[in-house]
């Protein structure tokens, strides 16, 4: 049984944020395509957002790759809950 918690817990939190980001982005784009007018401004905004979002996601994962996620945040192996008894 694993008795340590690594800082990868922050990474998993970030993955949840990315999931939220992608879901909301999808709903926004769906609405703009489904209900927006066929205009230059609307098409431009959708394309710009997709490009910007893709660039930013790639950038964030590049930044996160510089971190050693195996670093131990909490070490539970030394603590014995029954030691005081």
């Amino acid at each position: 049984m694993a008795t340590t918690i690594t800082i990868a817990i922050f990474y998993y939190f970030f993955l949840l944020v990315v999931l939220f980001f992608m879901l909301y982005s999808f709903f926004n784009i769906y609405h703009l395509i489904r209900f927006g007018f066929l205009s230059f401004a609307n098409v431009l905004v959708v394309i710009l957002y997709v490009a910007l979002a893709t660039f930013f996601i790639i950038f964030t994962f590049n930044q996160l790759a510089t971190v050693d996620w195996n670093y131990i945040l909490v070490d539970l192996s030394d603590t014995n809950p029954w030691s005081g008894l």
Partner: protein
Amino acid sequence: MINKNSIPNQRLGEEVVIHLRRHWFIFFKLFLFFVTLALIPVIILLVVQSTSLNLSLGEISYAFLLVLALSYYLVMMVFAFTAWTEAYLDVWTLTTYRIINREQNGLFNRVVSDLYLSKIQDVTAQQRGFFATILHYGDVHIQSAGAQERFVFEQVPQPYKIAKIIQKLNDQAKKDEAANQSV
């Protein structure tokens, strides 16, 4: 995407007179708001650096702050896009027969309703506030004859001009209706 000239349940001879959206300044205010939010972490960083505090971050605090900052920008980006979508998809269309109200109230709440011009009882235009007055934008309130809730064109450019156009179209619609009844 919808063609600009397409009208839901179009009547014979019905044409689009004008599509209305919020004034550009409303979009600009949204833009400024999110730019300010984006600058907050940068300003905090600059302030902390200028106080010459020892910022030798450990692996844990670096990872935590990195995830926090990136999450902040991702969430802010998607909220900014949602704000744009909601404002952009609010469209009020004046046709030769009716007013079509298309409002996006949040991502999962879209309202489409219409009101025949002949049913309009009262049109009121309102410019309130400093920027609204100098940039000529405001609300147009439309009260219908029935029990139906009145329409509000929110923060549209030239509200007085729009009110006049609606009144003209209303007069024309009433004349046409009277002419049809007499035939």
